[in-house]
């Protein structure tokens, strides 16, 4: 299977480029879904619109013998190993290229540390008759950022939720994708699908969660004053952020102390309204919300 044959257009009555920004949300996620199914993934869509756009499952050989367009029912026909069920939590970000740039945002709530969380960056109009997927797990993405752009989440905009990343670029003369100067071809289409089919995350989930957390912490606990804050605060804040990570017991105790402080310093109505607001925020999680 060559990169030029994938992704396919699963909807022959219409071209992916015929949709506009306002009416393409459902069709683009369906486009991704059908292309996962094409490679024998079982795909599930959310009942409510939550942060995960699709869940994809397949069974693979733990020794990498399963082809990209296969799922195995019994033991691996090559090495006889028991199949591993792999699950990927897919977040789709669809963009039309602007000046060959795939611009998208990553907010702090997008940074999950379960390594099975996977971004599908879907370029629905690489050119008039070409679509591309850039498929990358959160762990791989954080690792890439740590090696190549360690300040990517230091800006205020990351925490404000409008951190537009404009480094992913398609070079049409080379027919290749780059992040800055770094080649991103290994995440493109079948190459990316091959990477996320590796069962390492599923087999050693605990270790990979901890490693993803380490990477995430190194990237998110950085502060850049930008144009909003006086630069003199940059060192003060970064020194504060560099203090040893508190244990969960310390976090718990500190939060309990603050809860008591608020109870003592708020009238009943105010305290109850705070509790109600927490409930509202918790409910938002699974009742669905607008995502970009």
């Amino acid at each position, binding site marked *: 299977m060559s990169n030029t044959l994938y992704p396919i257009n699963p909807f022959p009555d219409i071209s992916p480029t015929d949709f506009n920004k306002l009416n393409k949300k459902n069709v683009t996620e369906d486009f991704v879904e059908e292309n996962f199914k094409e490679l024998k993934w079982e795909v599930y869509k959310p009942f409510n619109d939550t942060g995960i756009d699709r869940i994809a499952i397949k069974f693979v050989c733990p020794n990498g013998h399963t082809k990209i367009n296969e799922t195995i029912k019994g033991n691996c026909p090559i090495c006889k190993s028991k199949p591993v069920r792999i699950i990927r939590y897919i977040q789709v970000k669809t963009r039309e290229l602007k000046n060959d740039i795939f611009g998208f945002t990553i907010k702090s*709530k997008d940074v*999950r540390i379960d390594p099975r969380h996977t971004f599908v960056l879907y370029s629905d109009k690489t050119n008039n008759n070409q679509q591309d997927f850039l498929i990358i797990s959160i762990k791989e993405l954080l690792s890439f950022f740590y090696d190549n752009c360690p300040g990517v989440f230091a*800006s205020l905009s990351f925490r*404000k939720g409008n951190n537009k990343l404009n480094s992913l670029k398609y070079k049409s003369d080379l027919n290749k994708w780059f992040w800055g100067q770094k080649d991103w071809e290994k995440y493109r289409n079948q190459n990316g699908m091959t990477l996320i089919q590796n069962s390492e995350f599923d087999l050693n989930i605990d270790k990979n*969660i901890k490693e993803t957390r380490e990477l995430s912490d190194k990237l998110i606990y950085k502060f850049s004053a930008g144009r*909003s804050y006086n630069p003199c605060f940059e060192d003060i804040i970064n020194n504060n952020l560099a203090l040893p990570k508190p244990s969960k017991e310390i976090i718990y105790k500190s*939060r309990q102390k603050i809860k008591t*402080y608020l109870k003592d310093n708020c009238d009943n109505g105010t305290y109850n309204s705070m509790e109600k607001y927490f409930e509202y925020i918790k409910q938002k*999680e699974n009742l669905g919300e607008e995502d970009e």
Partner: protein
Amino acid sequence: MNRNLKSIQYAFIANGFQVFNSDNDDNCFILSRLVCFDCGEPWYTNLTECFLCKTINPYLFRCSSCGKYQSITKSNNASCSCGGKLYMMCPNQNCISNKNINLLNEINNYGGVFNKNSGMQISQQYCYNCGGHLHFYKTYKLKFMATNNPEKINLLELSYNFDGDYILIRADIKSEMKYKLLKPIAVKSNNEKWNTFQEILKELS
């Protein structure tokens, strides 16, 4: 999707699960939620905490003059009855955003730590329940069956070729909904006892 399936899925959603459906199999669905690695309680990505000291957003205003806290739903967002200005400050008195007066003033220019314009709040990084720092997706693939004739269920047939985690059976027994949650590999007989929905939730937590 049939009404029984919708009904059971709404019951899970009301109890904090996210539900995912397949186009291919009407009886199978996925339950998933992001939970704390240490205590298993839900992880709330919409909840925010102080970027500087990890204190949970109290969703309250504080008056810069009299120090009184006020609900964000009731306040007019501008000023306190005493005439002081209201800010969404971090309630932790040991937070650097409170201890360093210059920094406090700078952050208050953007409405306070928990004002969305300040860039000083971040999506939950530490568990709301236990303070743990890790989370993961807890996920189950379920096969669902609703019946009014529980004695006629063929469990072997139901579990045949099912590669998921549980078979969930719901029966209307004397006008009361009862449930069985069975691991497909353990299905041997139809003698397991019936449970309430709350007991099923406990098993999946």
